[in-house]
């Protein structure tokens, strides 16, 4: 019971991080593709909620190390390098965005901030995906003899990078759909719509690449799917949404397309969850995989974690709603 509540909050935090933090990253990627002119729009859209969007990741980390310490320590040890790169991305991006926004003098330095902002907007989700890919793939070898086998091979492969790329594309898609509703300029709006459609199409292609690369790296992802009808249902549903999503984008139905895009992303995360539940890290090489159940912390700890999460949410969620309403509500009324 306690463990289910904690898993629920873990999933909840991951979903919120992807939906909000992910869209922030995507906005940076979008800038990289679309050029400079959207910068103000993007900065305005993410400014007030910027910090809050990224706290979700800290919740994920805290839930992991308090509730499932063995999962946290295993990731930290064998995926040290991709985690490190992701952290550099987080630092560069977080600081570049704020420094750019608050620099008292606007001059050539803006280009530097912007360059770092865009590059790290790609780097961070790419390596976030690489880490997820490595957790699924099962190439972690606790008895590895060489540095390469222990600390590089688990993540430096086609599959992990395909998941990374998929992550980048997915986040960019979220950002494009989100920004459609943030702009009043018709020309810009149609540019975002066009971008959203294109990126959505490339998400399908990269999604296929994930499956192909899995086969190439000896992971029969399809077989894993066969074992979980929930995972299949999630993927089928995510695909079934596509035509409706496209239609809503075409007619720029802002709320509907945002909802459908979010639903699609949530379904993909759920598919990932179900395809390996209760496993969290496929370790590989004959070593037992780490599941929620064999890595769980003692009962007393889980109870305190649940209290903190439940009471914390009762404080955070209404306050977060107030924040969103204060800064996002107005624009809907303006239309």
């Amino acid at each position, binding site marked *: 019971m306690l463990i289910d509540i904690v898993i629920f909050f873990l999933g909840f935090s991951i979903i919120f991080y992807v939906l909000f933090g992910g869209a922030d990253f995507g906005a940076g990627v979008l800038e990289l593709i679309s050029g400079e002119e959207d910068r103000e729009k993007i900065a305005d859209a993410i*400014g*007030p*909620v910027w*910090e*809050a969007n*990224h*706290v979700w*990741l*800290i*919740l994920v*980390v*805290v*839930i992991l*190390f*308090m*509730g499932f*310490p*063995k999962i*946290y*320590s295993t*990731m*930290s*040890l064998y995926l*040290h390098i991709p*985690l*490190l790169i992701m*952290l*550099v991305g987080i*630092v560069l991006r*977080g*600081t570049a*965005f*704020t*420094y750019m*926004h*608050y*620099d*008292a*003098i606007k001059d050539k330095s803006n280009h530097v901030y912007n360059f770092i902002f865009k590059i790290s907007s790609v780097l961070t989700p790419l390596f976030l995906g690489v880490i997820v890919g490595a957790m699924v793939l099962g190439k972690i070898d606790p008895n590895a003899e060489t*540095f390469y086998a222990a*600390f590089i091979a688990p993540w430096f492969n086609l599959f992990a990078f395909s998941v990374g790329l998929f992550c980048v594309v997915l986040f960019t898609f979220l950002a494009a759909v989100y920004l459609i509703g943030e702009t009043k300029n018709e020309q810009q709006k149609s540019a975002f719509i066009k971008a959203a459609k294109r990126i959505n199409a490339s998400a399908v292609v990269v999604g296929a690449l994930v499956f192909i690369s899995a086969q190439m790296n000896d992971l029969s992802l399809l077989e894993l799917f066969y074992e979980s009808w929930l995972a299949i249902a999630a993927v089928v549903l995510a695909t079934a949404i596509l035509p409706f999503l496209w239609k809503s984008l075409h007619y720029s139905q802002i709320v509907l397309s945002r909802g459908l895009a979010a639903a699609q992303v949530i379904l993909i995360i759920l598919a990932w969850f179900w395809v390996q539940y209760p496993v969290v890290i496929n370790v590989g090489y004959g070593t037992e995989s780490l599941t929620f159940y064999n890595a769980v*912390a*003692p009962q*007393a*700890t889980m109870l*305190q*974690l649940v209290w*903190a*999460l439940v*009471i*914390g949410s009762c*404080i*955070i969620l209404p*306050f*977060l709603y*107030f*924040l969103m309403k*204060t*800064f996002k509500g*107005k624009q809907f009324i303006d239309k």
Partner: protein
Amino acid sequence: MEDLLAARLQMAVSLGFHIIFACIGIAMPFLMAIAEYKWIRTGEQVYQDLAKAWSKGVAIFFATGAVSGTVLSFELGLLWPTFMEHAGPIFGMPFSWEGTAFFVEAIALGLFLYGWDKLRPWVHWGTGIVVGLSGVASGIFVVAANAWMNSPAGFDWVNGQAINIDPVAAMFNDAWFSQALHMTIAAFVATGFAAAGLHALLLLKDRNNLFHRKAMKIALAVGAIAAIVQPLSGDYSAKDVAERQPAKLAAMEGHFKTSQPAPLIIGGIPDEEAEEVHYAIEIPNMLSFLAHGDFNAEVIGLDQFPRDEWPPVLITHIAFQIMVGAGFVMMAVGMVYLYLYWKRREVLFQRWFLWIVGLCMPLGFIAVEAGWTVTEVGRQPWIIYGIMKTKDAVSSMPGLQYPFYLFTALYLLLTAILIWLMRRQIITLSERYESASAN
């Protein structure tokens, strides 16, 4: 470079960097709230301008603190996976609450920074207070977790495994209160003096600048009161350390040989080989009094501990001297300020006093860094005092010096950019305010 040393240095750099922004995040919201309160009450525009100018600095520092804090939450595992695997379920509880506190802080800061025109004045002021209170709460939770490393509680250690875990007892360990109190007050001392010092230096260029005058008065009032209270909490902390971690206290004081009564050793250079402190001033019986409240009490020296359980005495002792020295200078300046404010207000903005305040600008943060060094280095060789050694907790990944170089370079770069950004804020600020002071 040895992996253990690299990991410790990376942790030191990361925490030493983060602690500055954490302190600013704790104390600055209250300075802004005072300014905004005065604006709402008096309607004087200068106070709103001040709150807004400070809030820009806070936004920059907060973003830096948020990302360096995120890095730390991962680094605990990246560098000390064995430690986290055992300690996570025991001392994770304050972190789980810190998550909420930090979330509230981030939300409230968003409202504060972007809500000047969207919220009613008192609601806006309230969001600033919430930023400060949740910052204080965050700090207390994190320090409680650190205190657990100094004073492990809430579990039984049997054959290298923790059993009978009680996270509540772990969070409210014996050290949490004294450490949290000392750190929270330190945040106000450091931030207050840094802000006051900065505005004092700017006043030296333009003594009639109303903006900087108001700014210095608010910041110095907060810093002064905190600096005067701080020695009391320091005394309480020292007595606590003497009870719980006598080896740390002995290293702090350079106290090699157990003695009754024990003299207080001020300054000097400890020599671990000869087991004595060169060039120090000794005050007879004073350490007995400071550590145990009795001039004739016995104080345990390092001789009671096996050599391999000694903290590095040189670093711990010198860091402790720096912290106490800086603390006393700030306390004295704080007292002078309050006296002048009370009796001779016209002297406050004379050059000599502005110089003193200006020179004090870095002292608070030097004390914070030194004090943190005392608590961390003084705990060595333990990561969990008496339970797990730091060398047994370090990651087994070879080549840890490279992440250390990477993060050191990254944080040096950010420090340079921050100084540059602050300069640019100040340049534009004085341009705006020179005219206002002429009016």
